[in-house]
């Protein structure tokens, strides 16, 4: 029982770490590259405009899709590793 508890706690901790990492990327591409950091990226041009515009209208959506699949895949491995899957 105590072992189960510590295993569960470790699983939850690993999950929280993964969520934090993913949300940092999530915020960085949308609020960062697409909005606040756009002036800094103005030098990098993409098809007639700048990288920030690409992130705002295309890049962030692609990263979001990648993030969800990455998270789902990692969590499946965590579920297995800790024996907490279904």
């Amino acid at each position: 029982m105590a072992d189960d508890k510590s295993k569960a706690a470790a699983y939850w901790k690993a999950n929280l770490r993964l969520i934090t990492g993913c949300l940092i990327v999530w915020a960085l591409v949308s609020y960062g590259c697409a909005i606040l950091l756009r002036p800094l990226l103005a030098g990098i041009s993409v098809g007639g405009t700048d990288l920030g515009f690409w992130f705002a209208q295309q890049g962030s959506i692609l990263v979001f899709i990648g993030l969800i699949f990455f998270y789902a895949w990692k969590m499946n491995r965590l579920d297995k590793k800790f024996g907490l899957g279904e």
Partner: protein
Amino acid sequence: MSQFAINVLFVGGSFAIYIGIAIWAKAGSTRDFYVAGGGVHPITNGMAIGADWMSAASFISMAGIIASAGYGASTFLMGWTGGYVLLALLLAPYLRKFGKFTVPEFIGDRFYSKPARMVAVVCLIVASLTYVIGQMAGAGVAFSRFLEVDATTGLIIAAIVVFFYSVLGGMKGITYTQVAQYIVLIVAYTIPAVFISLELTDNPIPPLGLFSDHSASGEPLLSKLNEVVTALGFNEYTAMVDNKLNMVLFTLSLMIGTAGLPHVIMRFFTVPKVADARWSAGWALVFIGLLYLTAPAVASMARLNLVTTIYPDMAAQVQNYEDAAANPIAYADRPDWIRTWEETGLITFDDKNNDGRIQLYNNAADFSDRGWQGNELEVSNDILVLANPEIANLPGWVVGLIAAGGLAAALSTAAGLLLAISSAISHDLIKGAINPKITEKGELRAARISMSVAIVVATYLGVNPPGFAAQVVALAFGIAAASLFPALMMGIFSKRINNKGAIAGMLSGLVFTLVYIFVYKGWFFIPDTNNLADVEANWVLGISPLSIGAVGAILNFVVAYLVSSFTEEPPQEIQDLVESVRYPKGAGVAIDH
């Protein structure tokens, strides 16, 4: 075949499919009705979420908004997709593990409080009902333009179809019709976009075309677009916005609002396993992304097409935009699609300088030196997508497809919202509070009756839209962001938040957000009751009423945390409940209690 006959064929054909699915997927139990039996495959569910989520606003209006605001409207693109990251990481798997039927049920159980559940029911009904009005109105526009019936008749036809498959099939019928509706809407959206992209950039893939060269001028499409719009006094299409704080908060409000909308969350209860909830969020965003990556391409290309239709000399490589701007087309020579849409009043022309030509430019700019006395052509944002096939001279069947697609987008979202409303009434209000002893058969009947009532109310409001129809999006997202999302998230990620904290948090987030919206938009949206004009100079710290949901959410978190810290811990069994939703093991199917 006449265009009208083609439209009837496409719309009628798609409706026949939906009705066929409804008969095939009749709900036999409350489990079927609320969660489609709980056995939906994650890819199927992803597709259904796509249709559930992409409303008349996404299909009909979004590209038009982006076309006129350019970079500034990226908020909608990021906000309405980024919310799925929050759903996948913070809510969907845990709520699926919880394994009940509705969102208020989780809030009621987790915060061991009937009042909390009722607050959630009220938030859900207000958010969903305001949202559904927009769908019915969108369906009305599509009907009146393509089927030559008046909007009221169109709405009643649409309501009967929705009634048929949602009352009969509940979530089960809605799931499979949404899959069909997704296919109809994505095909309808993509085909004209591919043709326009080919025509303008020689690239058949619109999202790539957006960053390719414009074939007529050889310049990159977006630089070309910047040149032509600035020649007409508009801001550059790709120009940075000044108020970055507001843009960040607006995007954040849309993201957490998306994650907190009950009709979307409910769809995650239909999959068999916790892992499937995570996968279906990913698939949902793939299917949504197909439209959301196409929309900005459609937007910029349609804007360029519109300008070069009025000023044909601007299309090729241009040395002197002054001269090109001096030579717009004569009103008498306008293309057919402008004539068609003039009839609906969504394009209007007023020859202010009486030269018989069309001057289209930024009304705020002064071009009196060119002999222009004001912008003469008003084009509603809502027509860009619907008019796309006509602008690109595509065959009649594509027009019919667009009509069916617009209706699919509006009706699939309406059905999801109506289900969220009816299950909150039959499951949370009737079974949860008024008559807990109701039999399953009785509850199923109650669900069907409340669904019928919700359809009648939504249709009535669609026919007689309250004056605030345009503002409702702000309200729905504001409520979901400020009240539901934080309560759900804290319920999962904190064991310490108790009933008092959750209720205080939800109410303060909700009241704060509503008051801020009402101060600028009018109390309860009654015209002329606003205390301050809704202009940037009046906004606190430059935060618009559309962006306030994010601030309301932060307030909700802070109040809930503070109140909980000064009051007692939740009882042990609640802490165990929180513990159990965190681990997928033993999820089983969604169950009634």
